[in-house]
């Protein structure tokens, strides 16, 4: 597995997409930091972009990579190594190379700007962590889709749909749910619904750390009470981990039974 990871990582790190992705974040980070000069605001803007883009890019790259690597995967399958090592290696290769682009792309501008001394460094690290988690989650989801659909167009469609579902539609349904049942106490529902979606969970974890959390008012206080505790932190980390582990487990199971 490590061998596959090593080679697919070094393949991907040299691809022009990785450079483009890195460069995008780099320029974004430089621009936001040095033009706005307000770290807290820069982090909010970055958060908005990272929470939309990392899942989308993870999805699109995951699908593209696994479809284009299909023939090579077949060659690997004929080699004396376990299937799960091939897929786990490729999955980790693509997730970690995307994550590296993100971390370097945003990290370098922040280091140049000198985040080390300021109180925002924890928030910044939290943002990076959320971005990395979302990358691993959405690559895993998209790989699952490519394994279940031979038809590239179909697979691509489903992958985008999955992204749309979690990034947009989920919040829409969430909002409708809140509006429909606003006669009832909604605290636990709100908490549950936002913990279950990894994008919402990441957004709230970051928001709570920023000044803007004051806007969340009473609802925010409930969330802070929950996430402020060790229990809340463990639950949210656990949920994020489950969002990686379950799709990866599913992926390995599918791969094991699949005909190539």
């Amino acid at each position: 597995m490590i061998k596959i990871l090593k080679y697919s990582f070094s393949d991907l790190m040299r691809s022009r997409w990785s450079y483009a992705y890195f460069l995008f974040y780099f320029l974004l980070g430089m621009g936001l930091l040095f033009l706005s000069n307000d770290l807290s605001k820069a982090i909010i803007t970055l958060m908005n972009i990272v929470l939309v883009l990392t899942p989308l890019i993870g999805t699109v790259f995951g699908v593209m990579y696994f479809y284009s690597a299909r023939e090579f995967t077949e060659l690997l399958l004929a080699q004396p190594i376990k299937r799960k090592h091939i897929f786990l290696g490729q999955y980790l290769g693509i997730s970690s190379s995307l994550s590296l682009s993100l971390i370097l792309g945003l990290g370098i501008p922040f280091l140049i700007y000198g985040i080390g001394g300021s109180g925002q460094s924890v928030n910044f690290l939290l943002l990076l962590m959320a971005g990395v988690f979302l990358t691993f989650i959405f690559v895993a989801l998209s790989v699952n889709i490519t394994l279940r659909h031979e038809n590239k167009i179909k697979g691509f469609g489903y992958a985008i749909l999955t992204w749309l579902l979690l990034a947009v539609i989920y919040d829409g349904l969430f909002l409708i749910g809140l509006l429909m049942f606003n006669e009832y106490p909604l605290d636990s529902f709100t908490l549950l619904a936002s913990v279950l979606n990894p994008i919402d969970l990441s957004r709230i974890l970051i928001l709570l750390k920023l000044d803007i959390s004051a806007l969340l008012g009473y609802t925010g206080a409930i969330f802070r009470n929950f996430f402020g505790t060790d229990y809340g932190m463990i639950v949210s980390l656990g949920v994020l981990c489950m969002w990686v582990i379950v799709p990866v487990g599913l992926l390995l199971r599918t791969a094991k039974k699949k005909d190539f």
Partner: protein
Amino acid sequence: MKRYKVLFFVFQLLVCTTVHANVLDICSTCENKQIGKAISLANAHDTLLVQKGVYKEFALSIDKPLTLLGVGNPTIDAEGKGEIISVTSDSVNIIGFIIKNVGISHTRDLSAVHLYKVDYFNLIDNQLENVFFGFLIEKSHHGLISNNKVQGEGKKEFFSGNGIHLWHCSDVIVEKNHLSGLRDGIYFEFVDESKVRNNVSIGNIRYGLHFMFSNNDTYSNNRFENNGAGVAVMFSKFVNMNDNLFIKNWGPASYGLLLKEIYDSEIVNNRFQENTIGINIDGSSRIHYKNNDFIRNGWAVKVTGGCYTNKFEYNNFISNAFDVSYNSNLNDNLFINNYWSNYTGYDINKDSFGDIPFRPVNLFSYVVNQTPETIILLRSLFVDILNFSEKVSPAFTPDNLVDEAPLMKKIQW
């Protein structure tokens, strides 16, 4: 220099107008070593000249017209034993002292300086440290509270008092004071015809200024910063608020300014910056909001109900998360000719007003008003899409809540 001029003037005034006035010196080597004893020895209209030093005294009761003048900032230290100076006579002046360590009581409002039923008082150039209440002034009229510094060390609302607390007073000027670490910086209840100006009220536990049942007052050029809740102005008429700064009142239940049941007032030339809510307006009518800056607040203006005939004109709304939030009918309130940084319209005829109206209430702020829990979707992609589509074709936001002629450029004043 200015300070000494004032002092000199006051001094001269006292010396020249009082016929039988004597001057008593108080110091560690003087005949009078204690302030308390000197007060009881003094005749009405005498001046007590207190020299530099530390006087460990409390419960000083002034029941005749006197001037206590500190030379070189003498310190009166009550060591937490209770109320320090209590005044029950007209024409008392307390000038130039450091007064510190009032005790804490849960049954009595212990203060550094307590005035009761007193007219014509001057409290000038004092520094009040570690107080429960600072100046506690009841049923008193025609006074000046100027250039004092009041510091509390309150951590919780229960264990702290107010800096300058006026109850049933009139014709008082509160100016150039610095208030911090108190429950409320300045507290007005039933205070009429008074002025609060050039004060700085920072980091108080509850309100920078707490203002109730007080009519025909003006507060201007004050700075209210980083107070627990902000400034509350309630149940009053004919209040003038101008040139004040309301900044960084940033917390889940904070606002720059709370208006509750305020009528016939002017709010002009103020700056509301980085508050969770710039102005929270509840049941207030006939108020004129003009030339105010609302910068980087969560909500610039939040209107909660029962408001009539308010006019917002020539204000700057810049980079607020929500410009206006409304949970009731618009009634006859008017927004016109304001500058909105969120405005994306154009001005073809170059009259410096936008040609298409601006709707300051976005859909999300409308939804949040209906169901507060939805705020948790703040800054999610869905909400951005929602607001955008609502902007393109409004379906939910109140039709009549518009600025028909928004300004194209930020207004300078």
